[in-house]
């Protein structure tokens, strides 16, 4: 252990610990704008300057390793004044537009400025002029609010292995952009939105679709329905200051009714349907020598990534549409028929933890109903903003239930929102189908649970069959797994890939922790735990036992993988350009 003092407090840390981490471990907060533990420790923002006795000048705490006997001061006159000056310089080239900014005060630059006691802006300088890049259906980039911290670049490269954006040009001309100065929609971007979760300002944000949804809600000729993904119920509370992982399913449903939605449904219903179709597909591929491993296709970030980076793996992807798109196709067919509605009058909205879902809904092939199946996709953050715009206080609302029939779901559908959840839900159904005996069918498959940075593997024996399965979360982890599969180093029957760390609960459209990205790990754990809690409390925990799904097959679809299912619930993929550069780690 290494012994040093920070602000005269003796501390003892593992060798290799930075001064910043040492301070955090002992309750001393050093401000940061660019720091992301392990992936962006570059001293770029200069906010973490500290004094260390014997060192020349101020040092950046995020890059300085602790040394024996070091005496660190984080709160001297020099440190405070220098940090304040740096903030004043950053603000001198910042498009200060807090009242109209989508971050609505949940902004690290704003918070640090307030903490530093900045009361005026003494430095006047040239301001960057740049139009907002609205080219992507998922993510918007406003370079005039960028502080060049490069967190987005680090996440895109290190966590996602995508490198859709990087730092280009030099000096005052430096900016975050895709290669060749292209706009975002021309990059090999998966639309995962992880960059929007770590941006300390309002430079990278979800594309805002709230105006279109308000317009539909205010149009008396439209029947506006909404579906909510499993991951929303354990996260939307955070937009009202509730602790991470708060379960607010009933209040969320009431809130959506207060906004004016005519019917409030649950994507979890079509998650159950996805399991029935996908388990049938797996059975089909296993018994008829189809392409294996079968890889899940629920995550639109992962799907677009595969289209750019692993086009030869596309035959492995399940042809099942994601639950969002299955819901969209059924809403304007089955639901419309059943309730005598003209599909042209239905506006179908989804609330998703995901920015990539916005792109998915706009794919030209997603019109099985003859219309765009899902009209508008809102992230959890946009949903939270709409509730506030409508004066709805989520915390004070009574609980209410989803509407039927597209609102009935099982515990298996709920855990779709976490890494390992789709796998576990599929195994619950497969175990029963393959053994033909409900009593033998396991419910808990803990070996595929948890946010593990690497790859989770399991060998599951069901009814005399040995199934080798694997789970990856985050695209860089997925790429490492795909390289092994392609090299023949591993053999699996069934693989779950989710594009975001932790799965959908860690999606790029989820609430941004007010204290910055350092909280993200803990926040994701809390949300995951809550999904398993909901599952534990559910009376039905296997997707195929969902009575509404059974009724859907009886009344409308016929059988899994049947003609109608094929038309409405399955899709195809395409090789997409530009080809992504596989960095092969």
């Amino acid at each position, binding site marked *: 252990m290494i012994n040093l003092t920070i602000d005269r407090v003796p501390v003892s840390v593992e060798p290799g610990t930075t001064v910043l981490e040492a301070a955090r471990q002992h309750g001393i907060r050093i401000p940061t704008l660019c720091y992301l533990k392990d992936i962006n420790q570059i001293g770029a923002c200069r906010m973490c300057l500290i004094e260390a006795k014997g060192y020349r000048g101020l040092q950046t705490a995020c890059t300085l390793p602790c040394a024996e006997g070091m005496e660190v001061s984080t709160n001297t006159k020099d440190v405070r004044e220098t940090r304040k000056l740096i903030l004043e310089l950053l603000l001198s080239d910042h498009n200060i537009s807090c009242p109209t900014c989508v971050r609505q005060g949940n902004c690290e630059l704003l918070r640090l400025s307030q903490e530093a006691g900045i009361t005026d802006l003494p430095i006047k300088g040239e301001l960057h002029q740049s139009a907002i890049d609205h080219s992507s259906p998922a993510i918007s980039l406003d370079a005039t609010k960028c502080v060049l911290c490069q967190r987005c*670049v680090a996440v895109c*490269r290190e966590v996602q292995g995508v*490198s*859709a*954006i*990087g*730092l*280009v*040009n*030099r000096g005052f001309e430096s900016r975050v952009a*895709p*290669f*060749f100065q292209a706009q975002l929609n021309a990059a090999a971007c998966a639309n995962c939105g992880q960059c929007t979760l770590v941006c300390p300002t309002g430079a990278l944000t979800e594309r805002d679709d709230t105006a279109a949804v308000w317009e539909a809600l205010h149009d008396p000729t439209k029947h506006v329905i909404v579906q909510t993904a499993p991951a929303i119920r354990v996260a939307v509370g955070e937009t009202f200051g509730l602790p991470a992982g708060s379960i607010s399913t009933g209040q969320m449903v009431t809130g959506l009714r207060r906004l004016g939605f005519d019917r409030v449904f649950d994507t979890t219903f079509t998650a159950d349907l996805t399991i029935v179709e996908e388990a049938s597909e797996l059975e089909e591929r296993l018994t008829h020598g189809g392409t294996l491993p079968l890889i899940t296709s629920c995550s639109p970030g992962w799907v677009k990534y595969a289209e750019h980076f692993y086009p030869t793996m596309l035959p492995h992807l399940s042809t099942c549409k994601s639950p969002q798109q299955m819901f969209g196709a059924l809403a304007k067919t089955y639901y419309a028929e059943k309730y005598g509605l003209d599909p042209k009058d239905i506006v179908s909205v989804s609330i998703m933890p995901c920015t990539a879902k916005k792109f998915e809904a706009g794919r030209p092939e997603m019109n099985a109903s003859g219309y765009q199946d899902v009209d508008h996709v809102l992230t959890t953050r946009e949903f939270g903003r709409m509730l506030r715009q409508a004066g709805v206080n989520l915390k004070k609302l009574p609980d209410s239930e989803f509407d039927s029939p597209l609102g009935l779901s099982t515990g298996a559908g709920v855990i779709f929102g976490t890494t390992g959840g789709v796998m576990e839900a599929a195994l619950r159904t497969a175990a029963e189908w393959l053994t033909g005996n409900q009593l033998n069918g396991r419910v808990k498959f803990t070996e595929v649970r948890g946010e593990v940075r690497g790859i989770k593997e399991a060998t599951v024996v069901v009814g005399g069959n040995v199934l080798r399965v694997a789970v990856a979360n985050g695209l860089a982890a997925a790429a490492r797994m795909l390289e092994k599969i392609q090299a023949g180093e591993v053999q699996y029957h069934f693989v779950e890939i989710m594009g975001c760390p932790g799965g959908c609960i860690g999606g790029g459209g989820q609430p941004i922790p007010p204290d910055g990205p350092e909280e993200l790990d803990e926040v994701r754990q809390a949300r995951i735990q809550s999904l398993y809690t909901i599952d534990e409390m559910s009376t039905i925990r296997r997707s195929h036992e969902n009575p509404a799904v059974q009724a859907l097959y009886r009344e409308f679809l016929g059988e899994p993988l049947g003609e109608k299912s094929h038309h409405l619930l399955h899709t195809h993929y395409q090789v997409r350009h*530009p*080809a992504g*550069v*596989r*960095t*092969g780690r």
Partner: protein
Amino acid sequence: MSTCCCGMGVTTDDPRFAELDAFMASVREQPGSLISVLHKAQQLFGFLPEEVESRIAHTMSIPLTDVYGVVTFYNLFNTQPVGKYAISVCMGTACYVRGAGRILDRFAEELGVQAGQVTDDRLFSLEVCRCVGACSLAPVVVVDGEVRQLKEADVPAVVAELRQRSELEALSQPVSARS
């Protein structure tokens, strides 16, 4: 023939790619060899078109944004074609106070392009540079690689001289190479 999207005449089956590929293979084991590969590519192609940057990224397994980031960081790398003759006016302090600005304006007028641009016939690129270490001769201009002490009035003659040089070179080539 493979398609080209940059409109600058570089196709993916251009024979120069074979030489670039061979060079990349020779430095494959060396970490941090991106800059030397970019130098080689610029030497071969005269500048770094998108196809070339893309080829380097895929071959070396370096994200294209990183390749592009390095290319746009260093002034030395060109992403646009350069003229046959580069005219680089020194705007360092000594040259500037001795009238480099007026010389630059005069070149711009004679060639009909601004600094950083190339003439339509691709004969001249007009550039500015910072101090070439010949301050005692100020103001200086680097003309086709040669440092010259110039006055504003010399500009038309320099342009005429280079045009003539280009014509003579064309005449001295075998007939089959002319087009």
